[in-house]
């Protein structure tokens, strides 16, 4: 009975998410109609039809959720939702013919949803507006979280909603009610998207783009910057615009995008001191300053970029793009391996792995975990140095003062450890398929941290095993392992019973 109730609940939630995805395709569909791209209109109509049928069948099978969701089932639903979204969200890409295989399409969907930003698309300069719109919707949606979207539109008041919200790696609530939290996340994101579109649209006009192109690029790049996604409508990424103003505006947006939604909400609701008290903001400021200083010192010493402006527009931009896990590029991929030098490479590896903030659009193992790991070490050293009977009490600030305890530090250290393991395995798989170790380690850090910078490894010519490894690394990195482990455990336990 319990087994069938679980299945019915899974079918119910997955059905809703699939229908939501189908409804979302209306936006690129309308875009295609506007730009008279009739082939793309049919690509989206076909995809919506398939998603509509699958979603309806699941909801007919299970019209209502049963009882309260368990933590385990919440996690399983999230892990399955992301896989289903990857498989079905790839349909318009496949129908468009701009990707060489269905695997490449799923790679790009996972890259978008996880806000990584690597792409296997062919002839990017000529893809239709509708398909581009779908790419950027996926990355923007991934930044906020699919489940957050579902909570706003489809799952209001459903029992156990918080349990699937946590499964997506957002473990804190901005407001006591999880639906209100999801709405607040959306409010912040939509406001920043509008401001970003306006400022980048105007910048585009000033650098000579036509009004339609300036507005569309402005909207897409702002969606991508805020989501720390890294997709761009041009192969050359931000380098295409050759504009200091464009680079500066995108930097401002991806820095803001990499902040914790709780921090945004605190600042937006009058608690402005939080910006310099918050452990995560302080850690991000510290690590980014140290890593940027090391990298720029090396880049300048090696003569890669010699002027202040070149260092700022190439070196600093790339380092911040890596640390916020955005992946916008103002350098050429091969430069990392041939020109950057060992110290700058170590700095960028670490920046990509450290990432932005927890409960933000960013990836990596997150500033709060670095801060907590540092606090844990400091606490242990203090305890060792203190008299034997003394009890050392340390605190950190995340909205309020919290005591440094094992229940906070241990999960942080576990996740950091798991990220390093995943990075190592991904590096080994890449290297075993014919790439040099620096290239492999760079690309592996980029997919594990959901960054999107590339040393030139990622292309449609990659062996399928590497593509699958990268999809898995992006997925695990984004969901922070837990939901996937629960899904794997759940499937194994069912198999063992048979």
């Amino acid at each position, binding site marked *: 009975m319990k087994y069938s109730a679980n299945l019915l609940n899974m079918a119910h939630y997955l059905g809703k998410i699939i229908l939501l995805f189908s409804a979302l395709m209306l936006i690129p569909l309308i875009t295609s109609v506007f730009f008279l791209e009739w082939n793309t209109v049919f690509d989206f109509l076909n995809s919506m039809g398939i998603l509509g049928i699958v979603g309806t069948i699941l909801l007919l099978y299970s019209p209502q959720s049963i009882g309260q969701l368990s933590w385990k089932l919440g996690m399983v639903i999230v892990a399955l939702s992301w896989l289903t979204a990857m498989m079905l969200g790839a349909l318009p890409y496949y129908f468009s013919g701009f990707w060489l295989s269905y695997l490449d399409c799923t790679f790009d969907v996972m890259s978008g949803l996880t806000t990584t930003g690597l792409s296997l698309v062919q002839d990017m300069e000529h893809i239709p507006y509708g398909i581009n719109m779908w790419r950027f919707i996926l990355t923007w949606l991934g930044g906020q979280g699919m489940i957050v979207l579902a909570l706003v539109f489809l799952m209001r008041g459903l029992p156990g909603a918080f349990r699937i919200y946590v499964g997506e790696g957002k473990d804190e609530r901005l407001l006591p009610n999880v639906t209100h939290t999801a709405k607040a996340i959306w409010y912040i994101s939509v406001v920043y998207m509008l401001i970003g579109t306006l400022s980048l649209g105007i910048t585009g006009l000033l650098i000579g783009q036509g009004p339609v192109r300036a507005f569309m690029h402005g909207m897409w790049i702002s969606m991508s910057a805020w989501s720390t996604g890294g997709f761009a409508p041009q192969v050359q990424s931000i380098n295409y615009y050759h504009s200091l103003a464009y680079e500066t505006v995108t930097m*401002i947006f991806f*820095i803001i995008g990499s*902040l914790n939604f709780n921090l945004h909400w605190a600042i937006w609701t*009058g608690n402005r001191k939080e910006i310099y008290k918050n452990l995560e903001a302080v850690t991000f400021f510290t690590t980014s300053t140290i890593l940027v*200083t090391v990298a720029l010192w090396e880049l300048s010493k090696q*003569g890669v970029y010699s002027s202040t402006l070149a260092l700022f527009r190439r070196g*600093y931009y790339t380092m911040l793009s890596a640390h916020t896990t955005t992946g916008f590029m103002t350098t050429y991929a091969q430069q990392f391996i041939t020109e950057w030098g060992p110290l700058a490479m170590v700095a960028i590896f670490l920046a990509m792995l450290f990432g932005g903030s927890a409960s933000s659009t960013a990836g990596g193992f997150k500033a709060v975990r670095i801060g907590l790991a540092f606090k844990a070490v400091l606490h242990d050293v203090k305890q060792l140095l203190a008299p034997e009977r003394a009890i050392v009490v340390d605190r950190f600030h995340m909205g309020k003062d919290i005591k440094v305890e094992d229940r906070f530090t241990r999960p942080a250290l576990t996740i950091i450890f798991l990220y390093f393991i995943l990075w190592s395995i991904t590096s080994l798989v890449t290297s075993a398929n014919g790439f040099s170790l620096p290239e492999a380690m760079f690309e592996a850090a980029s997919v594990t941290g959901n960054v999107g910078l590339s040393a030139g490894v990622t292309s449609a010519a990659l062996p399928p095993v590497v593509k699958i490894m990268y999809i898995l690394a992006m997925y695990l990195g984004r969901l922070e392992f837990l939901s996937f482990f629960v899904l794997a455990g759940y499937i194994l336990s069912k198999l063992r019973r048979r």
Partner: protein
Amino acid sequence: MKLPARNEIQDNIYGILLEVAGASGLLLLGLLICFWAAGVGAK
């Protein structure tokens, strides 16, 4: 969805301005580091 009150919108705007100012401050610091690094490279 309930629209935010006027003072809430005011708080939101101050919050956005503070975040933009914070990010711009980080960029200024970056520019200073670039200036320093360019000096190191020139030696």
